[in-house]
């Protein structure tokens, strides 16, 4: 079996659908930023065309070797890797979670509201109303730690989450905008008001000493944002024990990279957060990663850019049994 073609089709909002086809008629699809189309095409030509699509491990490392430090090429490699896994699992009529060896298990999930998407507090309320039927017990709000509106937004998030079984878990996406001491001061004030589970990038993630300093001086766990790539980005964090949780993303790590890096983190017993992605396909990892913690949900099922078989109920994301990634490409994206 060999990969024969790579093509892209424009979708809405600057995104494109990429499709990899094999000589037995099998095809794998995934989404990529339209701006990365040409990068992905060059990478596919060089590393994938003519290759056996089941060689996922070897192809992933080959693509990374070719991408080097080019972050656009790294993101393109991740997209191609996801499409390869879609191809392989679709061909064998298996959902991705089974193809990677996982058990069918719902993913603990947290609702994520971004500063960019939601803007004013009023927009948060609309989002919370839309999310209410899904019963989220965990939530993340993204904002600079020094934002005056942050305590109010966290309070509203707390109120919007389902507290029927236990107090909701709160995450803050701090966006790496503070110096370590400023982050410690701001988080310490917030911790007088709230029991915060974890903070994403309280200072820039590349500042390993600073990240460690913050972790050592607050109660909440600290995790990385998506500004670092692969083992190169995580190695020093592992060595310094500067992160309490590791966040991975199919958008930069692919499926193969998530599996590999989650193993590395498991060596330190560091829990894994899976960042949001179209179709919420990160739900497929819940039954395969030994220290899976939570899946970030930005795309509510009714608002998905890639409608998928992943369903959300009582704050759990269920990947379903549809083959591959389970994305319904025939359904128009939101």
């Amino acid at each position: 079996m060999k990969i024969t073609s790579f093509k892209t089709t424009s979708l809405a909002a600057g995104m494109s659908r990429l499709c990899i086809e094999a000589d037995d008629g099998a095809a794998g699809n995934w989404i990529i930023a339209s701006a990365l189309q040409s990068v992905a095409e060059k990478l596919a030509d060089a590393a994938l065309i003519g290759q056996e699509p089941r060689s996922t491990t070897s192809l992933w490392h080959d693509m990374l070797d070719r991408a080097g430090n080019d972050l656009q090429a790294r993101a393109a490699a991740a997209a191609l890797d996801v499409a390869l896994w879609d191809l392989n699992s679709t061909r064998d009529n298996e959902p991705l979670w089974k193809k990677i060896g996982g058990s069918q298990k719902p993913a603990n999930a947290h609702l994520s509201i971004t500063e960019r998407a939601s803007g004013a507090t009023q927009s948060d309320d609309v989002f919370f109303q839309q999310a209410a039927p899904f019963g989220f017990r965990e939530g993340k709000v993204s904002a600079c730690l020094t934002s005056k509106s942050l305590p109010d937004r966290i309070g509203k998030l707390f109120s919007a989450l389902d507290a029927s079984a236990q107090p909701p878990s709160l995450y803050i996406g701090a966006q790496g905008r503070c110096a370590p001491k400023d982050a410690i001061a701001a988080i310490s004030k917030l911790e007088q008001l709230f029991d915060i589970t974890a903070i994403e990038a309280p200072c820039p993630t590349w500042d390993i000493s600073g990240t460690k300093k913050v972790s050592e001086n607050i109660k909440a766990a600290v995790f990385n944002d998506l500004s670092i790539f692969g083992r190169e980005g995580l190695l020093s964090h592992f060595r310094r024990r500067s992160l309490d949780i590791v966040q991975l993303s199919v958008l930069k790590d692919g499926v193969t990279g998530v599996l590999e890096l989650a193993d590395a983190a498991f060596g330190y017993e560091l829990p894994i957060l899976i960042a949001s992605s179209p179709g919420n396909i990160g739900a497929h990892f819940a039954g395969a990663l030994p220290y899976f913690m939570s899946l970030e949900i930005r795309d509510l099922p009714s608002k998905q850019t890639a409608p998928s078989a992943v369903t959300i109920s009582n704050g759990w994301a269920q990947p379903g049994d549809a083959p591959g990634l389970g994305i319904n490409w025939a359904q128009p994206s939101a």
Partner: protein
Amino acid sequence: MKITGFRSETYFMKMDREVADANLPSGVEIMPASILFLETDEDITGVSLGYGGGVEHLFHLIEGEDPRDVLGLWIKINDYLHKAGNEGAATLVFSAIDMALWDLKAKIADEPLWRTLGAREGRVKAYASGLDYSLSDDELFCFYRRMAEMGVDSGKLKVGLDIDADIRRLGIMREALSIASDRPGLMIDSNEYWSPKQAVRYISKIEERFDLIWAEEPARRWDYDGLRLVSQQVRTAVATAENLKSIADIYPLIANEAADVLNLSSGHSGVTGCRQIANMAYAHNVPVSMMNCQANFMAQVAAALPGHTMMEVVDPGREHCLKYDNYVQDGFIHLSDAPGFGIDVDEAILKDLQENPPKGKGAFPFPRREGAGRYLVPPSPSETPWSS
């Protein structure tokens, strides 16, 4: 598809030659072995080699489950072992079950395991390892020359009790391998016989004459301070980890920068555990090397591991009842497209081995030799043919 049952078989075999190390220089000929068969409702059977027994204690965790969900089942078993610990006999059974599950997953997909694990090709660089402490100098030369004739250009010598003999025999190994390479790769293995400071002294002495790729187990398996000290004080890389059981055991070695190479085996909590360790090692830029095993079946896994260097090939004749079609040529283990591990069992030979156990010298496992970690007790003439 569901797992419906299991059958385990144990037996003894007599190898073609003795194997030995510094802890038992006189060596053994008899080797115990086990085979686990995992049965399914679709007439596909998973096979794994080398566990110790006691599958019935863990089987209820996988009975009725889909074998393709192997990572999920690994988590389930690992969690079950939480209190008692993933150690000793439990690890052997855990490993055997996990390997048989991967064999099933690949067989269900009708593909070799190396492909299921994402490798581009079924091909792994080999190095020769004689487990050769009890071989005479002539036998030592013959073993490594035979491997060199198959293109193998690196070798690992058992050392530890007599530094002058070690240096002489390293020269013999290098000469034997020289038909495969102008600069054969040389490694030594002292099997935890030395203390860290003994290791520094002896390896430094060897380094005056030879350029070594790695020194294996130059200190105790768990002594990350000692292993790091050796690594810091000699040029040679320190390899270790073969006797550990899981990524949890490996963590102190990596976190304390105590290992330059990690030796992997099926006993590291199966294929899944092995891959976890390899992925952790890869994230830390530490190469890995697969240990020897019957019929080189773990080459299927090694082929797909990032950062894998070369796999140990011992070839002492342990495949009596096993049918397989991998082979060593041009210095590589070549794997076929046979599904799963590519291992079949000749039931008639297995039955004969069980009913007529062979007789021979000694039996596994090796005890630790007197003086280990403190002073050398050289082999007597009754122990090795080369001692004086």
